[in-house]
């Protein structure tokens, strides 16, 4: 029973079954809405609409299917199976890469060779020359002109092992990354410093299970968003670290330090609003990092009033209503509704340097710098994952492009002429092997003097 179980566990049939089941789970993940891909509001809406279905999926862990118990079991079985299959294959690989022992077989009667041919050797060419030409073409040749065997790319089966080892490297790197991963979001405006304080991250950052969060210190010097025809084409952020060294980050070019990446993503206005009384005395004021891009409304409070702000980066009036030509910051204007105790006091627009009067005060927009949102990630083990990717890519190229080719041959004299009799085979192909060996021997002998096949 045990041996039967182990046999099944280490079988390729089980591998295929597991890959298929993993594929089914991946498909299910595309069909079942995943928490990580939905906003909390959307998820709650779904839960509200289909409570029993969501409860069923949640019980199975299918709303985070890629980390669900079933998925983890499948991955565990997959790697156990992979390890067992590789272990079983080691003797086979050893056997395959070994050069044939003993006298090479007769090419005319050797079984399993789809390519057979006999060539007249040109004048001045003998068996030794043929062997040396084959060696030049990368064949490891044993024997002599009375019977030889040449093998090319004999180490190719090792690539099978390397390809599958790459899976373990990716697994190892992935596990290290999961346990050391820190994820957080932080919004920083121009001129603002950050010393790595975890309390300053938006909401609660995901802390690493092992190791500290990012230890960084920098000040954002400038933020320069670039839009061309409404398409974001750049978001340059200049920073100066604690040692006074300047760095620049952009989309696709994060600021990297202490195994952490600071990825710039969202940008928005961080205006300095000041409330003044009639005499011009400043009552209250602050830089506000407003989340108003894309027509969103944001709220801030100053001097006991609430201000609802909508932002128009490229302001104009469309049929009397405020609108924006594009998301480019060409003519930035805020539409502000001032409220007190839930009642609207006034509504109006404010431009940079301008003001909006309400009650006995006025709201001034003194400066209009930007803020930028950094997605912060810290993790270790990435180089192991990348090594896994590199190994997988190299191994798959090695195994499938540089596969084993084998020739057996003999040079014999017949009616005063030297004849080369050869047979050839390769892994994976039969018909195409014939073409390949025909072309190779024609080139090798620089002749089309093949006598028969």
């Amino acid at each position, binding site marked *: 029973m045990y041996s039967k179980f182990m046999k099944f566990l280490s079988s*390729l049939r089980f*591998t*295929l079954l597991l*890959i*298929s089941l*993993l*594929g089914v789970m*991946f*498909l299910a*993940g*595309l069909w079942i809405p*995943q928490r*990580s*891909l*939905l906003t909390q509001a959307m998820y709650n809406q779904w839960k509200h609409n289909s409570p029993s279905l969501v409860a069923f999926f949640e019980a199975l862990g299918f709303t985070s299917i*890629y980390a669900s118990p079933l998925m983890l079991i499948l991955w565990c079985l997959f790697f156990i199976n992979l390890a067992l299959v590789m272990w079983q294959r080691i003797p086979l690989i050893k056997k395959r890469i070994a050069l044939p022992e003993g006298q090479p077989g007769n090419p005319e009667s050797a079984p399993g060779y789809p390519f057979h041919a006999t060539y007249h050797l040109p004048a001045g060419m003998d068996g030794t020359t043929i062997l040396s030409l084959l060696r030049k073409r990368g064949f490891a040749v044993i024997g002599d002109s009375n019977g030889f065997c040449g093998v090319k790319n004999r180490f190719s089966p090792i690539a099978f092992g390397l390809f599958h080892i790459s899976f373990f490297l990716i697994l190892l790197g992935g596990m290290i990354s999961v346990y050391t991963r820190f*994820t957080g979001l932080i919004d920083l405006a121009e001129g603002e410093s950050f010393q790595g304080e975890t309390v300053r991250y938006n909401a609660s950052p995901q802390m690493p299970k092992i190791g500290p969060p990012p230890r960084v210190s920098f000040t954002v010097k400038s933020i320069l968003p*670039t839009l*061309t*025809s409404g*398409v*974001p*084409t*750049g*978001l340059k952020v200049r920073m100066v670290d604690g040692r006074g060294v300047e760095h620049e980050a*952009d*989309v*696709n*070019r*994060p600021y990297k330090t202490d195994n952490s*990446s600071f*990825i710039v993503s969202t940008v928005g206005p961080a205006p300095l609003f000041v409330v003044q009384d009639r005499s011009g005395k400043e009552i209250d004021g602050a830089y506000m990092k407003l989340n108003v891009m894309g027509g969103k409304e944001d709220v801030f409070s100053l001097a006991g009033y609430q201000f609802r702000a909508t932002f128009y980066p490229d302001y104009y009036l469309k049929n009397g209503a405020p609108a924006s030509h594009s998301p480019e910051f060409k003519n930035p204007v805020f539409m502000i509704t001032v409220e007190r105790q839930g009642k609207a006091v006034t509504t109006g627009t404010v431009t940079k340097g301008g003001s909006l009067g309400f009650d006995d005060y006025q709201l001034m927009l003194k400066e209009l710098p930007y803020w930028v949102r950094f*997605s*912060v*990630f810290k993790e270790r083990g*990435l180089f192991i*994952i*990348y090594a896994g*990717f*590199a190994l*997988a*890519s190299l191994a*798959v*190229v090695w195994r*499938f*492009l540089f596969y084993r080719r084998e020739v057996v041959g003999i040079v014999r004299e017949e009616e005063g002429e030297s004849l080369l009799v050869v047979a050839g085979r390769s892994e*994976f*192909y*039969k*018909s*195409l092997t014939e073409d390949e060996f025909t072309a190779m021997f024609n080139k090798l002998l620089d002749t089309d003097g093949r006598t028969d096949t």
Partner: protein
Amino acid sequence: MSNFEMIFFWISLVIYSLATGGYIYSFVFKNPRFMPKMTILILIGFLTHTIAICARYQAQGHLPWSGDYESAMMGGWFIIAGTLIVGWRNKALQALATASVPLVVIMMGFGVMRNPVLTPMAASLKNYWLYIHVYFAWLAFGAYTLAMAAGVLYLMKRKSSKSGVVNPSYERFPSLDRLDELIFRYVVFGFITDTIMIAAGAIWAKDLWGSYWSWDPVETWSLISWLSYGICIHLRITFGWRNERLAWLAIAALSTVIISFFGVTFVVDSSIHTFQVR
């Protein structure tokens, strides 16, 4: 879409459609003499297709890499290039166009109905890994398409030889054994380039999204597609799946690739993948 590009794009589409019609004519009316002429027609279409790509490059300052229209345009170009290259090296393989060109016609037709507007290079696409990722993606798609085409030829020829009714058009195809091995060879080539594509994409994703793998719908479909072809290779090498079974497998597996290139962003809008410029 610039005027110059539009003219050459539509000329290419018309030429490829004519070639598709020509192949259908050859099979239905058993007239194989028509087939070499179709290769010349496809070559002309390929040239106008290349001009359309150059015109787009000239108009927007970067190669067409993103969005359904550009994906269809570049993908179609790679598939036609692959078809012409294998047909140039081996005349019997010119017939692969029978299945690959109609697919290109459908793809380009779908693409032009989506978003052909000229767009500047989005910040999210400005990365050297983009070129490696997308280049290998199209090589993989091209190779898998050729595998599908070889599968279609295999099944057509097999059916013809089984029925005993000789169609001289099928005689131009390579032998069944060769077609069977070609399917495997193209699948293997596609699998190699697919592997490199996924690895390059993961490395790029780390700098763009902060995670080398996010289980995004496009990523997940790419993995499903890669696994499908991995299964295909295992079935062939280990379990000896050949002939009709392998041909059907190569045809069916292409659907996973088409879904990851076009289907996911068509159905789902939660993908963070920048196949669409946002």
